[in-house]
């Protein structure tokens, strides 16, 4: 880039051009270049010194930021690995259990742990390490649950209604992940006696409120089911986690079961 003007000598024009090149390098986070200070102490030398010092400070801050990012990445990676170890331990323990009721409890616990591990796995792979896109999370989680719970002859399909990308931080993603896990698990376990049907998962927003809607085409809740009295651990968790999100839960039993969580 060449600057010209009546008051700028060709020599100074060249010096200013070099300064601008160095500034552009810094903008690309390349701090290897420095401007040349001629030593005559003029204003351009002053500018050179200022740019050089700014580059040094920026480099230092950038390195520090990169170190912190690396550390955060490492933490998410380790949390994910530790959760997977817990999940594997539960798996190993389940091998000696014959009682289907206990086995179900272990599988449910393992899936809850896996839903949290997936949040950390996606966080350390994400660009800013703080938020993940829930659409991709929902697809991966529902697929994992399907593989874990479906019977060999099952034909249960997932229908996703996620029209745009929604990003959430970990404080929202963990409860949301657990809620989604519980709802899909309930549907997989109770909604389809003939192992056929569909589960719809949608997310939308309006007027600052985000709504998670999960519905199935199954048989619905048993007649006379009382949400307050008869809730299993999964339902209790859904209610508790919705409160944690400062959200509102609405369960509808018509034409299957649908959970509407607005937060």
């Amino acid at each position, binding site marked *: 880039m060449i600057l010209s003007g009546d008051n700028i000598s060709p020599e100074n024009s060249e010096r200013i051009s070099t300064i601008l090149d160095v500034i552009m390098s810094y903008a690309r986070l390349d701090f290897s270049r420095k401007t040349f200070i001629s030593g005559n102490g*003029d204003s351009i030398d002053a500018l050179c*010194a200022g740019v050089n010092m700014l580059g040094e400070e920026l480099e230092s801050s950038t390195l520090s930021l990169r170190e912190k990012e690396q550390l955060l990445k490492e933490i998410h990676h380790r949390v994910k690995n530790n959760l997977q170890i817990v999940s594997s331990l539960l798996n190993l323990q389940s091998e000696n259990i014959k009682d289907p009721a206990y086995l179900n409890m272990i599988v449910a616990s393992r899936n809850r742990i896996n839903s949290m591990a997936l949040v950390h796995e996606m966080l350390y792979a994400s660009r800013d390490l703080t938020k993940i896109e829930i659409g991709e999370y929902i697809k991966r989680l529902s697929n994992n649950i399907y593989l874990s719970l479906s019977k060999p002859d099952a034909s249960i399909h997932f229908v996703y209604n996620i029209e745009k990308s929604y990003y959430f931080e970990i404080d929202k993603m963990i409860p949301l992940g657990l809620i989604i896990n519980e709802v899909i698990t309930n549907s997989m376990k109770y909604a389809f006696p003939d192992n056929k049907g569909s589960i719809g998962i949608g997310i939308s927003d309006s007027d600052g409120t985000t709504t998670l809607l999960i519905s199935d085409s199954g048989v619905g809740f048993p007649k006379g089911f009382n949400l307050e009295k008869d809730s299993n651990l999964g339902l209790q968790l859904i209610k508790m986690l919705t409160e944690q999100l400062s959200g509102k839960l609405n369960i509808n039993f018509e034409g299957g079961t649908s959970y509407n969580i607005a937060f």
Partner: protein
Amino acid sequence: METITPPPYATETGNFFTWMGTDGICRTITKPAAEIDLESAVENSNIVTALYKNKKFPLLVDSRNIRSMTKEARRHFSTNGRDTKITSMAILVKSPLSRVIGNFFMGINKPQVPTRLFDSESEAAQWLKQYL
């Protein structure tokens, strides 16, 4: 530009002349086109510290001939995180170059002792006297 001439008893290092003035103010002046790195900064502050005799003192830095100062040297001169025998610092600047370096030092490194920039030695010395 009024110049400060180091007395014969001043200690000379690679980039500085340093001595204790008869007024109780320590003075250190940079040599022409001085390029100050951490090694040079540590050498200078060791000389300054060696002048301590039971009482902390103000420091007048003549940086009018400076050419550059590295980030590490600026951090060291800020005296943050290290013991220092100085009560205050007045930095003499004149050329645009020395002004930029001085202002950058003051703005980014924030010395732990009272510090100000001056373009006159007499005004700097007058200000430092309150910290004797």
